[in-house]
């Protein structure tokens, strides 16, 4: 467990919770990335602006971190192109069909005690763990 970073995890999580708080109290919307992004893809009349602004802010937030922090954030992949494509399709299709991802179900849904979101979060976490186990520890895929 030498890679455990409890303090930055709690602070970063708090910032994500604050983001959700701001969006629900002021805009009345759920801070679910797949929902906000998926909704923007169909160019809904009168409903596009805030989605684009939120997503622009999301990217700007990561860039802002690089400006303020002593070292830029790290992004490490352990995947070739076919795996990236398959995983991307599954994440996009699955979050759209299941009405949410780690933010919409995992953070906002659990925070408002939605049975749907609690069920979805337990399910996708267990399946993600099982998938990685099969990949890393059994030599499958």
């Amino acid at each position, binding site marked *: *467990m030498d*890679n455990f*970073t409890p303090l*930055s*995890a*709690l*602070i*970063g*999580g708090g*910032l*994500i919770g604050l*983001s*959700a708080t701001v*969006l*629900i*109290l*002021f*805009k009345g919307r*759920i801070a679910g990335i797949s929902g906000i*992004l998926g909704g923007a*893809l169909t160019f809904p009349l009168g409903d596009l602006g*805030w989605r684009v*602004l*939120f997503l*622009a*802010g*999301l*990217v*700007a*937030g*990561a*860039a802002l*971190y690089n400006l303020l922090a002593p070292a830029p*954030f790290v992004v*490490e*992949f*352990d995947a070739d192109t076919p795996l990236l494509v*398959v*995983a*991307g*399709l*599954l*994440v*996009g*299709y*699955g979050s759209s*069909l*299941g*009405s949410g*991802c*780690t*933010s919409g179900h995992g*953070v*906002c849904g659990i*925070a408002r005690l939605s049975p749907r979101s609690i*069920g*979805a979060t337990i399910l*996708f976490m*267990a399946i993600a763990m099982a*998938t990685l186990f099969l990949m890393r520890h059994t030599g499958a895929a």
Partner: protein
Amino acid sequence: MIAAVVSFLSGLLFGLGLAVSQMINPAKVLAFLDILGDWDPSLALVMAGAVGVAAIGFTQAKKRASPVLEIEFQIPENRELDMPLVLGAALFGIGWGLVGLCPGPALAGLVAGHTESVIFVGAMLAGMLANRLIQTIRR
């Protein structure tokens, strides 16, 4: 104008939180999902921090008739665990476990400029559009 600032600011806090917590790094997420490997429990604390703070927001929201800047709250009322939810969450879980990326970190991580991020986001958008297309045809 103020509504635009609030939307942008909310996204900014989210992106900053992903970078601070390192959830923007798929390797860090996989280290959490790998419970039988060299387990890194950080993601659980990110969730705890996020849910804890968001719960205050949603509790306050419940006490209000409407959000500060809009006419009404748009909160899902469906509480049933139906087939699309279960199937969608399962497929999402497989994809998440394969690479360690979900939509927020995938988008925010584009800033680091890796080709892998662009490929993943492209496929993710195609997956989202595919589901919307299928739902539209079925209707």
